[in-house]
């Protein structure tokens, strides 16, 4: 009897302890991002595959003000959907009204970007997300405090367990979840996308065909100005399906630099005054412009490239008309260029309910 009891006990113990990880009940569904056909495949890091549950958790965290010291600031405070996930401030306001020194960048098509922040100091979304929480002029809260606050929410604990299989989540899990959400912020349904597809003989969907028929002569003419080497000469930095290249450039804003930009990261004087080339998608809604938000309107921007370029030792070679102050567009060309820039507006992106605050939506 004793032996029988002993054997049964051992059997039950062994079976119950066999690879506990396989016995945890979790339920996640792979997330298929809605990547436009004319885009490259979306690069997703192997250690952070996207799931529907992870994206939803990331969305909640993105809008959660508990990430800040006084529970007043969320990621969305400086990255509002209606402004294409930027804000209207020259420099965003953090906790206690503290002010940063750079303009809030629009969050669009981040999955295809390789460097983050204006100076590119982080090379992954997951890294980038860790910074604003602890930055004094942004959320100003340590990660241990942040995790304590979030851990007090049983719903978060359950979601982190479900998404990542961890009973005690840490900052990397928070950043991974937010990164999953940010990778869903895809803009590829603007007039520009239809124009790009049409020009390259890619088939248009019925929905795109309707958009195509709405494209005006002025918008096509503005596109010519944009891509013309003897016109706007904009294509070097804003080209292709993504309308964006991964590079840093000194675009002739200043002769001397209060903000050394990329040089602060590399230490290389040749990078002085260089900043990440931003996307032009939804540019109509992302004012003010440039790393320091110095330009309030699209007119200011177009005027800068037409007449306001300033030469300096690190100015980008592609600013080839800097010696004459810019590309010298006349009034009509500037108006056409501005008209074209508005074709980057993607109303579906700006109003996508999947991107909205889950508390509101």
């Amino acid at each position, binding site marked *: 009897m004793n032996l029988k009891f002993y054997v049964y006990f051992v059997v039950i113990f062994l079976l119950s302890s066999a*690879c506990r990880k396989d016995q945890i009940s979790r339920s996640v569904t792979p997330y298929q991002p809605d990547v436009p056909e004319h885009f*490259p495949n979306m*690069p997703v890091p192997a250690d952070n595959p996207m799931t529907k549950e992870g994206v939803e958790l990331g969305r909640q965290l993105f809008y959660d003000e508990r990430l800040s010291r006084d529970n007043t600031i969320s990621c969305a405070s400086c990255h509002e959907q209606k402004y294409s996930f930027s804000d209207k401030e020259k420099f965003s306001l953090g906790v206690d009204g503290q002010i940063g020194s750079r303009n809030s960048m629009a969050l669009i098509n981040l999955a295809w970007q390789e460097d983050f922040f204006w100076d590119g100091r982080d090379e992954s979304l997951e890294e980038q997300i860790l910074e604003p929480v602890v930055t004094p002029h942004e959320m100003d809260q340590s990660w241990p405090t942040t995790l304590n606050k979030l851990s007090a929410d049983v719903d978060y604990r359950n979601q982190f367990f479900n998404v990542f299989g961890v009973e005690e989540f840490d900052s990397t899990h928070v950043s991974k979840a937010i990164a999953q959400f940010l990778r869903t912020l895809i803009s590829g349904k603007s007039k520009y996308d239809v124009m790009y597809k049409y*020009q390259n003989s890619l088939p248009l969907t019925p929905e795109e065909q309707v958009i195509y028929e709405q494209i005006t002569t002025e918008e096509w003419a503005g596109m010519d100005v944009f891509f013309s080497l003897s016109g706007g000469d904009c*294509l070097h930095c804003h080209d*292709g399906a*993504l309308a964006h290249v991964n590079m840093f450039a000194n675009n002739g804003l200043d002769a001397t630099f209060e903000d050394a930009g990329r040089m602060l990261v590399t230490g290389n*004087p040749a990078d002085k005054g260089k900043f990440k080339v931003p996307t032009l998608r939804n540019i109509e809604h992302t004012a003010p412009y440039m790393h320091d938000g110095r330009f309030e309107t699209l007119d200011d921007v177009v005027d800068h490239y037409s007449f306001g370029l300033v030469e300096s*030792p690190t100015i980008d*070679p592609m600013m080839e008309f800097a010696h004459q102050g810019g590309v010298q567009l006349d009034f009509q060309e500037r108006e056409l260029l501005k008209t074209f820039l508005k074709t980057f507006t993607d109303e579906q992106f700006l109003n996508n309910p999947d991107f909205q605050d889950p508390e509101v939506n």
Partner: protein
Amino acid sequence: MKTIYLYTLLLTAGLIVLESCKDDEDNTDQEPQPMEVQVNLVPTYDGESFEFNKPFTTQEGYTIEFTRLNVILSELEHEGKTLTRSGVYKYEEHPKRIWRGEGSFQDFPSLTANVGVPASRNHEDPSAWEDDDPLHILNTDDMHWGWNTGYIFLIIEGKADTTANQTGENLMNFFYHTGTDELLKTVSLENLNWKSESNTLYSADLTVDMYKVFDGDTVDVDIKEERASHTMPSQVELSDKILSNFASALKVKQ
């Protein structure tokens, strides 16, 4: 009988435990690693080591500095065997490597290659290549003008002081963005010097003397007057000189 049954049950349970955790065990039957080769490019300048923003002197005595050097090589082949369809070199990202991938170095004692992309592939959708294809738009990035004009084969950017007094205060930008189907160049790279980097990796170095891009074997580039090219119709001649000189200066490093 009962005892045998119980011991059998115990043994079975133990085996289940051991089997179920197999993924944590060392796998001693590992697949053999495939042989890899890497083709490198080591730029020089008239015998000097090459670096960005390092001042060199042109044949005219001008100071010249480089800030960008990117090139696409394609159809790296030997006697019908293809090492790779394309490789993209970007000094800023990787100062040596053009391409690394599976292959046997013994099959490629020499290579022919194009500087640029052949017309048959120059106008394909740059987003549609496999993600790891060097020509994929995320790998070439701004080395692509558009579907009609295709890829930029060779980018050279920098600064040069072409004034008489050479104070070093008059460095002005120059850039050459060269390409288009008509300017594709073919090079022959004889007697590659393959070196073993590990049991499974062999590498061969190519070299290009950037001095000779301006002081070519047959044509020179006058950097004072010929500072820029986007390979527009009026600039095709200059782009052709740059590409021809680059192709001539591209050699096997011994």
